[in-house]
């Protein structure tokens, strides 16, 4: 084991909160080590609904949560301008819904008071006829609707932008690196012991250690001997590889919960469930019952939903704060910064609870607590300092496309991930050759991701640049992608095949619960394409 490295702060957990804390502390001039056992944003963050929202449903429970959430959403929209886009919901009302149209509009009128905080437009009220004209897929039973605006974001890029900026300000950030123990000196936590992806064990000393591990909070706090109780809740989404509606749509489930069909830039997320979870946090499976629960709800407002071909599912566990008795859906997404000194453990801080939309604020308050402990006087700058890619205006995508000889659509997608840094990514001899045509993704971007964005597997590339996220689910591109990434990382031929096998097996797990009649054609093609790899046993 090499000599321990020394840092001011070690942050455990590379979801959006951990990455946000690492960025915040680095901008304040502290030396930071950020450790993530999987890939950046691969846990709860990546399994979210991909939205920066103000939380209108919290109006029923706590207006302050809505205000804070909306305010922070406004900051995120400002600092990550290139990563966000408007998501507009139609909230249809059917006879016998829990809320009638007047109650729904009242809620939206109240929400409108907060909307300017995140640069969003006020709601509109639609008659049944207007609603069906705007969204012809709606059920003829709809008696009226209201609209609501939120922001969409690629959470994987948001996390990585925070990691990238933390590193640019001196942090050290390691993914695929698992903390296996906390180093203690009496009642004080003085560092961490961690295992890298090559199996080597190292130690790092830190004046403060932050536990930002989301649903894994209890596991890490247990290493320090301080209990932090959560009430983990599982949520799944069904992913369609296209926009299947003009607007995003909300629906009421059979048990009265609010569900969302979210039209993102090039795909649709339908979710989410919210169930107490007691299983293995590292192996969260989607059940066919959960898929049916979601489809049943949307069939009522959007009758053609079962005619569309889903491409996969996602599953994640929310780190909800512990409360007894309440239904899962009523639990607030509030968060808590816990300084464990009060429990006799110095040098150890936990951030528990919260949600994607408030990640920046959570990071700020956690960083404030850390700075107080360390006696470090520096103000938070993350509300106004742009994230990488948002430092300057982007050039028109057609110009970028012409300069590098790639389709304009590929330039648009590239900018949606890298913003004003898109040209830097393309500054490569490969020019505009496409690897993944559905998305589309160039060889240059994929090579850049392996070289400069810590991509170590095809699944990492899925998260970093949306490799294989389109309708063909990778059947046309993963072999070529393994060549490009393997070329950058020095993989042997067998390592490239292994990487493809691992990716295909992993993506099958997310795809299996939604394989219906129309999806089997795609599946046969994917299986046929991979048959040469000896993957016949995948299903």
């Amino acid at each position: 084991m090499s000599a321990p490295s020394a840092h001011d702060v070690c942050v455990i957990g590379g979801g959006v909160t951990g990455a946000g804390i690492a960025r915040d502390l680095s901008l304040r001039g502290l030396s930071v080590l950020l450790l993530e056992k999987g890939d950046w944003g691969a846990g709860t963050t990546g399994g979210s609904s991909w939205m920066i929202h103000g939380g209108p449903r919290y109006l029923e429970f706590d207006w302050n949560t809505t205000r804070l959430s909306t305010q922070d959403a406004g900051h995120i929209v400002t600092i990550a301008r290139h990563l966000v886009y408007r998501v507009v919901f139609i909230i249809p009302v059917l006879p016998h819904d829990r809320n009638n149209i007047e109650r729904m509009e009242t809620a939206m009128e109240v929400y409108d008071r907060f909307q300017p905080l995140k640069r969003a437009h006020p709601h509109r009220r639609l008659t049944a006829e207007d609603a069906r004209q705007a969204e012809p897929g709606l059920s003829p039973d709809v008696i009226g609707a209201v609209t609501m605006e939120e922001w969409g974001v690629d959470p994987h890029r948001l996390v990585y932008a925070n990691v990238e900026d933390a590193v640019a300000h001196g942090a050290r950030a390691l993914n695929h690196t698992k903390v296996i123990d906390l180093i203690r000196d009496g009642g004080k936590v003085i560092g961490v012991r961690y295992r890298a992806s090559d199996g080597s064990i190292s130690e790092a000393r830190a004046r403060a250690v932050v536990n930002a591990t989301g649903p894994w909070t209890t596991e890490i706090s247990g290493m320090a001997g301080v209990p932090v109780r959560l009430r983990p809740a599982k949520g799944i989404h069904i992913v369609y590889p296209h926009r299947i509606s003009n607007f995003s749509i909300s629906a009421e489930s059979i048990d009265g919960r609010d569900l969302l069909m979210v039209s993102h830039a090039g795909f649709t997320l339908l979710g989410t469930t919210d169930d107490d979870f007691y299983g293995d946090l590292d192996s969260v499976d989607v059940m066919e019952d959960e898929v049916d629960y979601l489809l049943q709800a949307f069939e009522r407002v959007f009758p053609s939903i079962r005619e569309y071909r889903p491409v996969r599912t996602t599953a994640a566990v929310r780190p909800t704060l512990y409360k007894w008795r309440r239904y899962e859906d009523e639990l607030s997404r509030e968060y808590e910064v816990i300084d464990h000194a009060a429990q006799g453990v110095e040098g150890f801080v936990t951030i528990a609870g919260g949600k994607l939309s408030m990640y920046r604020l959570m990071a700020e308050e956690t960083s404030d607590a850390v700075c107080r402990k360390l006696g470090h006087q520096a103000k938070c700058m993350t509300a106004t300092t742009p994230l990488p890619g948002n430092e300057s205006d982007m050039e028109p995508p057609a110009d970028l496309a012409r300069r590098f000889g790639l389709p304009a659509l590929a330039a648009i997608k590239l900018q949606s991930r890298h913003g004003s840094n898109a040209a830097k990514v393309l500054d490569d001899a490969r020019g505009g050759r496409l690897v993944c045509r559905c998305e589309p993704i160039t060889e240059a971007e994929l090579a850049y991701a392996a070289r400069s964005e810590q991509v170590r597997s095809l699944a990492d590339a899925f998260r970093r640049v949306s490799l294989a996220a389109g309708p063909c689910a990778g059947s046309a591109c993963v072999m070529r992608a393994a060549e490009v990434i393997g070329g950058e990382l020095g993989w042997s031929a067998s390592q490239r095949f292994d990487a493809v096998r691992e990716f295909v097996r992993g993506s099958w797990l997310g795809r299996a619960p939604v394989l219906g009649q129309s999806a089997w054609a795609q599946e046969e093609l994917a299986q046929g394409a991979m048959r040469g790899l000896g993957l016949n046993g995948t299903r």
Partner: protein
Amino acid sequence: MGRADSLAKLAWAYGIHLTRRRLTRQRSQLDDLLHTYRPDGIRALLPAERAKLPQLVGCINCGLCALAAGRMGKTRLPDLATSYMRLYARLGEASSDIEGGEPDFEAAASACPVGVPLADVAAIVRRLSAG
């Protein structure tokens, strides 16, 4: 306390809302809605396009149509169905990709194993990219 307070404020807002509804004349807000979000590319597909959408987005990217019929402008036909049909909110910025020659859509559609009506796909992409 937080919840009771929230519900009380919502009840007050509800009363104000009902009163306002009684006192003001209602008008359609559909045009306002569509106008507000036009700059964001959130445009409605036409009812006829919506009715066909499950088939229009059914491409599995097998590539057979590309062998049968080539390209529309600079764009391969499978890309039209898998990529351009996905990102229709921003197609106006990618119109240069599809300017040019017209492929044999009949040959392409007859080669398609899942029955994607490629001529319809092309028509929608052209309409949306024209802004």
